[in-house]
């Protein structure tokens, strides 16, 4: 595909596809939970962008994009944030337990 026919939506679509790959790679290959959580969020960002590309291509009826996928993304971003907050709390609690038991070992 030549640069002249490349439109913004396609460009961001390719970016979203690459982000999905990067995020998946991180989720599978990281052992540290916080890094997996970051990778999950990278992956989520890529998936949401794909929705945005679909919305952009579905522009019509005077809207710059199809409103339905955009609305889905808004729901999705809020859910992803909640998941991140829950996961972070679990990670911190787990670390706190580990630190407490380390302290016991030394004393």
């Amino acid at each position, binding site marked *: 595909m030549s640069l002249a026919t490349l439109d913004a939506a396609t460009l961001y679509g*390719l970016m979203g596809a690459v982000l999905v790959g990067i995020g998946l790679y991180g989720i*599978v290959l990281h052992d540290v939970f916080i890094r997996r959580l970051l990778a999950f969020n990278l992956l989520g960002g890529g998936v949401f*962008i794909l929705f945005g590309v679909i919305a952009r291509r579905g522009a019509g009826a005077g809207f710059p994009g199809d409103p339905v996928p*955009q609305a889905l993304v808004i729901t999705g971003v809020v859910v992803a944030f909640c998941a991140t907050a829950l996961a972070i709390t679990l990670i911190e609690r787990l670390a706190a337990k580990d630190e407490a038991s380390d302290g016991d070992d030394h004393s």
Partner: protein
Amino acid sequence: MLGLALDLLIAALVIGVALWTVRTRDDFAAIVGFVAYGLLLTLAWARLAAYDVALTEAAIGGGVTGVILLRASIRLKPVATARKPIGARILVGLLCAAISAALAAVVLLPMTPAPSLAIEVRTHLASTGLGNPIAGVLMAYRALDTFLETVVVLLALFGVWSLTPDAAWGGRPAMAVPAAAFGPLPLFGRLLIPVGIVIGVYIVWVGADAPGGKFQGATILAAMWILAMMAGLTQAPSIGRWRLRLLLAAGPIVFLAIGLAGIPLAGAFLAYPEALAKPLILLIEVALTLSIAATLGLLVAGPPDVTPGVEP
């Protein structure tokens, strides 16, 4: 063409910081990379003319997600991590590349015309009294999703609280802050918070007819509350307080009550009588804004760790 140059730059930077976030050895550097990712994605959404989403990403991705991740990264001890064997990395890398390639193929073979519900959204928008099509989707056509999402948010908060020690149940999040009057922070808070509240309310208010809305506005309000807590201007509330519980539940309750009233009055659950559609939707949005703002703020504040009745 100039626009495309900007898009190319944004896309390259997004991929660059994403790679950095996955590849770096340093956990903190990865988190900073992720915050940059959130900022750049906001630009990408703006370029995709998805202004409502860009606002959401700016408030959540660029704002509060960064706050919880950074706070956690400072408190967590760095964990030494061994790299996986090169064979595994190559294998997983190839698999992920294959998935990316398959998605790219789908992206490059677009349907003409692209499937879209834009026309249907436009056709029925007048009966909702709203001008912003995305508000129409969220509050009318797919109102069930939105209602359940508020339940998801509430459950996530309850899940965070569930991780508290038994004794601290009913207590408040300590929201560890530095010693009182940390530099210019309290002053910053006192001046910024009123401005932020005005902006948050404005974003909710324009949401009916222009990009904006309850989730974005509520996130801004939540951010102001978090700022007040970080600046030591206020404490997080005790989670056992009935009034707090009522504030958290108010949004879903109002939504549900109006939705159920739609069964006799408008012929279906979550249908609005046409004459009253806009005022009812606005009422729901106001209640949801308050509840979501409180919920998001408490999600960032974390689980309660101060035993009720015991002050440190």
